[in-house]
C-alpha cells in the first residue's frame, strides 16, 4: 500500500488542523495570518502535486495521474485567488474571522479527494467534505438574512443531491457488485450487457453531480445562493468546486461508465443544450451582477458539458481547456465584483458599474476583456475555449448541439455587452472606493492571461493533452 501518493491531501489536512489551532489560541484577530498561512499551504501542496508519483493507492480507492494533478492545481489556484480577493472584502464587511480560510482549505481538501477518487465511496467522501464547508461559507454572513437563506437553501438542496448520489451508488453497487471504478468498468463491459438497475444508478449519480455543477435542470439553487452568499464566497463557489465536479464527472463517465456511453450520452447532450439556452436567456433581464454571473456560469457549464457529451480525446481536451480558461475569466470578473464598493458599502447592481470607464479605466478595461472573452469574441481566450469544444462536437456530428451553442453565445453576448455598455456608454456615477491590492493582483494576472492567451496557446494545450491522455489511457 502506497499511502505516500496521498501526501498532498495529507499535508494540506494537517496544515488545516495546525492553522486552526493557531487561529484559536491568540486573543487578537488572526484572520490575516490564517489567510496567508492557508495560501502558503496551497502553494506547498501545489509543489507536492507537481513532484507526485503516479499510481493508485488505498486498495484502488485513490488514483494519482496527470489528469488529477492538472485538475488539483487548477482547483488550488482558484481557491488561492478567491482567498486573495476575500482578504480586504471580509475585513470591510466584518467577516474577517479566521475560520473563513480554514473552511476554504477543508473544502479544497474535499475537492482533491474527489478529483483523485477511484471508487464511489471515496467519491462520496470527497463530495461531502467539499460540500459541508460550502454550506457554512454560504451562510457566513450570519447576521444577514439573505446569506442565512442562501446557506439554508444550499444545504437542503445539497443534501438532496447527496442523497441521490448515495442512492445511485447503492444501485450501481447492488447491480454491478462493486464500487471500484476499474472493476465497474470490467463489470459493465461484460458480454451480457447492463441491467436497468445500473442505468438508473448512473442517472442518479449524474443528476447529483449536475446539481453540484449547477447544470439545467438542477440549477434552481444557483442564482439565489450566488446572490445571497457574500461576494467573496460566491467567487469561490463559481470557480474551484466546479473544477472538482467537472473532473469527477469526466472520470466517472469515461472510466467506469465509459462502456455504457450510449446510455448516458443523450442525458448529457440534453443537459448541455438546456444549460446553454437557459444561461443565455435567463440572464438577459437580471439587474444584479451576481445573479447575472450565476446564469452566465450555467451557460458556460453547458459548453463544458458539450465537450463531455462528445467525449473522446478531443472532446475531453476541450472540457479541460474550457474549464481552465473559464476559471481564469470568472475569477477576474469576480475580482471586479469584489471591488464594487461605494462609501464603504458593497453594491452589486449592474447599474452601479455605470461610467467605470471614466472612474477606473484600468478595472473597466479588465472587465471589458472578461466580458468580451466570455461572449467568445476573438482573439480573447474565451473564443479559443469555445473553439476547442466546438471542434470535436462538429467532428463527431453533433450539429444540433453545436448550432444551439453558437446561437446561445450570440444571445449571451447581449448581456455581456450590457455590462460593457454600462461601463463605457453611460454617464458616470460616483466612483468606487480605492481598489484593494489583492484585487489588482488578481485582475492583472487573469486579465493578461485572457488577453494574451492566443500568443501562447501551446502551454495550456499540451498540459491538457497530457491530462486527458492519462484518463483515456
Amino acid at each position, binding site marked *: 500500500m502506497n499511502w505516500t501518493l496521498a501526501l498532498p491531501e495529507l499535508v494540506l489536512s494537517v496544515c488545516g488542523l495546525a492553522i486552526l489551532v493557531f487561529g484559536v489560541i491568540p486573543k487578537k484577530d488572526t484572520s490575516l495570518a490564517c489567510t496567508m498561512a492557508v495560501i502558503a499551504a496551497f502553494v506547498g501542496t501545489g509543489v507536492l502535486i507537481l513532484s507526485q508519483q503516479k499510481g493508485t493507492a488505498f486498495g484502488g480507492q485513490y488514483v494519482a495521474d496527470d489528469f488529477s494533478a492538472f485538475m488539483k492545481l487548477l482547483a488550488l489556484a482558484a481557491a488561492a485567488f478567491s482567498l486573495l480577493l476575500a482578504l480586504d472584502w471580509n475585513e470591510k464587511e466584518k467577516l474577517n474571522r479566521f475560520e473563513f480560510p480554514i473552511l476554504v482549505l477543508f473544502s479544497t481538501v474535499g475537492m482533491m479527494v474527489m478529483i483523485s477518487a477511484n471508487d464511489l465511496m471515496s467519491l462520496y467522501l470527497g463530495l461531502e467534505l467539499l460540500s459541508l464547508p460550502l454550506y457554512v461559507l454560504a451562510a457566513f454572513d450570519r447576521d444577514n438574512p439573505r446569506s442565512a437563506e442562501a446557506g439554508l437553501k444550499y444545504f437542503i438542496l445539497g443534501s438532496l443531491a447527496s442523497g441521490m448520489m448515495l442512492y445511485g451508488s447503492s444501485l450501481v453497487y447492488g447491480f454491478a457488485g462493486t464500487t471500484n471504478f476499474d472493476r465497474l468498468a470490467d463489470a459493465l463491459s461484460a458480454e451480457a450487457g447492463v441491467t436497468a438497475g445500473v442505468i438508473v444508478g448512473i442517472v442518479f449519480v449524474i443528476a447529483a453531480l449536475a446539481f453540484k455543477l449547477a447544470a439545467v435542470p438542477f440549477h434552481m439553487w444557483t442564482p439565489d445562493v450566488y446572490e445571497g452568499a457574500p461576494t467573496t464566497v460566491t467567487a469561490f463557489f463559481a470557480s474551484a468546486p466546479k473544477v472538482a465536479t467537472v473532473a469527477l464527472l469526466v472520470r466517472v463517465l469515461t472510466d467506469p461508465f465509459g462502456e455504457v456511453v450510449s446510455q448516458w450520452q443523450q442525458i448529457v447532450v440534453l443537459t448541455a443544450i438546456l444549460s446553454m439556452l437557459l444561461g443565455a436567456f435567463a440572464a438577459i433581464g437580471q439587474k444584479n451582477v451576481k445573479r447575472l454571473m450565476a446564469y452566465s456560469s450555467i451557460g458556460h457549464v453547458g459548453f463544458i458539458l458539450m465537450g463531455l457529451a462528445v467525449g473522446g480525446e478531443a472532446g475531453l481536451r476541450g472540457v479541460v481547456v474550457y474549464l481552465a480558461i473559464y476559471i481564469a475569466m470568472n475569477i477576474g470578473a469576480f475580482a471586479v465584483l469584489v471591488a464594487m464598493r461605494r462609501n464603504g458599502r458593497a453594491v452589486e447592481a449592474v447599474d452601479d458599474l455605470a461610467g467605470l470607464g471614466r472612474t477606473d479605466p484600468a478595472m473597466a478595461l479588465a472587465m471589458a476583456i472578461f466580458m468580451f472573452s466570455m461572449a467568445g469574441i476573438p482573439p480573447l481566450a474565451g473564443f479559443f475555449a469555445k473553439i476547442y469544444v466546438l*471542434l470535436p462536437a462538429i467532428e463527431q456530428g453533433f450539429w444540433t448541439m*453545436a448550432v444551439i451553442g453558437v*446561437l446561445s453565445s450570440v444571445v449571451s453576448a*447581449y448581456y455581456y455587452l450590457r455590462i460593457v*455598455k454600462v461601463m463605457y*456608454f453611460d454617464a458616470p456615477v460616483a466612483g468606487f472606493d480605492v481598489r484593494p491590492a489583492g484585487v489588482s493582483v488578481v485582475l492583472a494576472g487573469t486579465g493578461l492571461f485572457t488577453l494574451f492567451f492566443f500568443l501562447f496557446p*501551446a502551454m495550456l494545450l499540451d498540459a491538457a493533452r497530457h491530462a486527458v491522455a492519462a484518463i483515456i489511457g
Partner: protein
Amino acid sequence: MNAAGFPILSLVTFLPLVGVLIIMMVRGDEAVVASNARWTALWTSLVTFLLSLILWAQFDKTTADYQFVEQVSWLPDFGIGYIMGVDGISVLFVLLSTLLTPLCILASWTSVQNRVREYMIAFLILETMMVGMFCALDFMLFYIFFEAVLIPMFLIIGIWGGPRRVYASYKFFLYTLLGSVLMLLAIIALWFQAGTTSIPELSEFDIPFNMQVWMFLAFFASFAVKVPMWPVHTWLPDAHVEAPTAGSVILAGVLLKMGAYGFLRFSIPLLPEASAYFAPFIYVLSIVAVVYTSLVALAQQDMKKLIAYSSVAHMGIVTLGIFTFNQQGIEGALFTMLSHGVVSGALFLCVGVVYDRLHTREIARYGGVAKVMPGYAMVFMLFTMASIALPGTAGFPGEFLVILGAWAVNPWIALGAATGMVLGACYMLTLYRGVAFGKITKDDVRALLDMEAREYAIFAPLIVLALWMGIYPQSFLSFFSVTVAQMVQQHQAAIGAASRLAGL
C-alpha cells in the same frame, strides 16, 4: 522570404499596436494626454501608410500567386498556422485601410474632445484588425480578425456616437456576430474535410456539392450581413447615422468591403458549384438592393442616412458583379469596392465638415452653402459626381464593367443595375441641391466659414484618387486583372468538371 526582404505584412498589421502602447503610457493632465494621443496616432498611422506603399511599389502584377507570404506555425495540433500574404484581390484593400485611417484620425482632430486617448486607441486597434483581415491567408486567422473588428467598432459607435448610439451599436454587434458564428461552424466543418485552414491549400480541395450548399449558406449568413445585402441591411443606416464621422468613414470605406471580400476569397473559389447554384438568388437580392434602397435613399431627410442607403445600393452592384463569374463583372466589382471606399468615405467626411459647424445632418437645415463655402461646395460636388458614376470620376469604370459583365449573363439584370445608376443621380443631386444651392434662409448657415487647411489636407488625397481612378483606371485594374482572370478560369473549370460529371 518575400519580395520586401522583411515581414512587411505583419509589420503593417501590427505597427498600429505600437502606437497603442505608446498612447497607453502617456501620463499627465487631460489636455496633454489628448494632444499626445492625437499626434502619436497620426504619426503611427502615417508611418504604417508609408510602409504599406512598399506593397504598391513591389507588388508583382504579372502573377496570380500570393505574395509577401509569411508563415509561422501557431496551433500545430490543429494545423492552423499564422499565414499572411496578399494577392491582386487583397493588396489594394490593405492600402485603402492604411490610407483611410490617418485621414480618419485627422478628421476627428477637433470633433472628438472627450476621451481622446481611448478613441485613438480604438482606431489604431481597428486598423490592425482590418489590415490583418485582408492579409490573413488562414481561414481561422481571417475569422479572428474579422470578428475582432467588432470590439473597437462597437466602442466607437457606442461611446462617441449620436443620441441613439446604444441601440445602433448593439444592433451592429449582434447582427454581425449572429452571421459570423454560423460561418465559424462552417469553417470547422471545412477543416475536418480538408485537414487544414490554409487558404492556398483549401483552394485545391474539392468539396462535395451537398456540403457546398450548406457551407455557402453559412458563409452567406456572415458575409451578406457584412456587405450588407438586402434584406439584412437594416443595421447599416442606424450604425452610420449614430457613428462619429470617422467611424462612418471606416464603416463605409473598409468594413463594408469585408463581406464582399469574403465572397471573393472564400465562397467563389472554395464553393464554385454552390456559388453558381445560388447566383440567381444573389442577382435578385442585388437588384432589389439597388432599386429599393435607391428609392429609400430618395426619401431621406438625414444626409448620413441618405449616403448610408446609397452604400447599400452600391454594394448591390458589387455583389451582382461578383456573381457574374466573368472577368468584367468581378473586376468591376473590385473596382467599385475601391471607388466606393474612397468616394463614400469622402462623402461622409463632407457631411462631417458641415456637421462639425452646425451639429445637424438634416438636409433642410442647410441650403445655399455654396455661397458661403465655395471650396467645400466644389469638393462636395466632385464626390457627388463620383458617387453618381460620372465618366471621368472613380465611380464610373467599376459600375460600367459590372453592367458589361451582367449584360453577358442576362441583359435584364444589366437593366436593373443601370436603373440604380439613374436613381443614384436622382438622390445624390437632390442631396447636393438641398445642401449647396438655393437661397440662404438661415442665419447660422450665412455665418458658416469655409474649410480650413486641415480639412483640405484630408480631402486632397481623396480628390486625387477619385480623379485618378476615373481618368486612368488601368493603374488600379492592373493589380487584380491577372488574379481575376485566374479565378474566372478556375471557376469555369470547376463548373465544367461538375457538369461533365453530371452528364455521365
